[in-house]
């Protein structure tokens, strides 16, 4: 079975902004002075400290897996996002390709006091093949994809880079 070569962040960014995916992959990164990013870090560092055992498997980093085989991912967002869900689905797929079956996922949104259960369906698996080839195509481009000009740009670490 083919190994998966992307990180969870790359899958996440694919759903957020193709430009961000490109820049991030080419190591064009900037200081996270952004208050949103900092808030995210605080939540990461404090809220879930007790359970925190980040696991690195190949290219992915999972927040933690509990003893029922559930992947947990913590997100700071005040909105449940497709990008988060696909990121966790990608983790499940990666584990599956490594022979770890029956894994499910759970995204915790401490700000919303909510959790979202994530399952990987056969349709998802098919969709991922398309996503992977799209990502490869984006990354093969010599130039970064165009600025998307959406509201998320305001809190993006690349804001000044993209707009100045």
């Amino acid at each position, binding site marked *: 079975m083919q190994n998966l070569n992307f990180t969870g962040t790359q899958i996440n960014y694919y759903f957020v902004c193709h430009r961000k995916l490109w820049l991030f992959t*080419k*190591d*064009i*990164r*900037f*200081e996270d*002075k952004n208050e949103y990013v900092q808030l995210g870090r605080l939540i990461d560092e404090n809220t879930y400290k007790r359970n925190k055992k980040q696991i690195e498997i190949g290219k992915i980093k999972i927040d933690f897996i509990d003893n029922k085989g559930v992947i947990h991912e913590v997100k700071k967002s005040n909105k449940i996002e497709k990008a988060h869900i696909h990121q966790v689905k990608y983790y499940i797929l990666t584990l599956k390709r490594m022979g770890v079956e029956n894994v499910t996922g759970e995204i915790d949104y401490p700000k919303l006091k909510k959790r979202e259960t994530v399952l990987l369906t056969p349709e998802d698996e098919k969709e991922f093949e398309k996503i992977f080839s799209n990502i490869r195509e984006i990354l093969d481009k*010599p*130039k*970064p994809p165009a600025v998307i000009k959406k509201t998320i740009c305001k809190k993006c670490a690349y804001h*000044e*880079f993209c*707009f*100045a």
Partner: protein
Amino acid sequence: MKQSLYLFSNCTIKRKDNTLMFDIEGKKKFRPVEAVSDIFLFSEHTLNTKLLNFLGQQKIPVHIFNYYGFYSGSFFPREQYLSGHVTISQAKHYLDKKKRMLLAYEFLNAAASNILTNLTYYNNRGRDVGEKILKIKVLKKSLKAADSIPYLMGIEGNIRDLYYSAFNEIVQNKIEFQNRVKRPPDNFINSLISFGNSLVYTSILSELYRTQLDPTVSFLHEPGYRRYSLALDISEIFKPILIDRMIFTMINKNELTEKDTEKDLNYCYLKDKGRMKFLRKYDERLKTTVKHKKLNRHVSYKRLIRLECYKIVKHILGEEKYSGFKMWW
């Protein structure tokens, strides 16, 4: 926004937990490390490797100046924002003559614009520099026709000579300023220009360090001419904006006089007090904000330097043609 720290009075700098501690003759001051962008050291200080490791971790460069206020070197943390893709593209822009000329031209064209803005400002206030403005305008136009770096540099030299010869008129003949002499500066104005230019150079280095650009690969100046020659390229644009205006104001308002300098055999340099006054003004200037047309909000001059670096990155990536920053006020 993170701030630059300028240290004068001899002190001992240490890491204290996660803050910086400055011990000035037993008086202790603390600064949270997150609030510091870079550190400028003047006069003598004591620091240890524990501190340097800490600054390294926090990605804070340290710039060191010698007794005379001349730049002597920088400490750069090993952690950098490197990107192989950007480095290779930057080198390509140096190697391809056309590409290199385009960037070199932009640096000088923007510099000439900013010089003209300064002169026009004073011409409108009754200083007789109109003829020099006209000549510089002609020279600026001829930059376009230059087909080699030495040719560009030649025109630039002429522009500078004309510009510096206008200084006497601007500072109302308070001081004799004949020629720009760099190493070592031989008179009052030259010593201010030298000091100011090295400040701009180091501020730009600090900003470059926070991007993926390699500061040793330059376009206008020959790489290796000075170690971080890309900072020299970008300095051309910001010297008239940050330093020259400030020098004129300070002299005309008598905030700095020849008494603030000291003359050695053939040196002229700022004394500690003068240096402090100069730096305080410089720091104010870096923090001054202007409305940014594209971002549609106010950004500081210091931020403008960073944005200029971003523009160069975008140009190098083949995204957006670079156009050097020109003052519009």
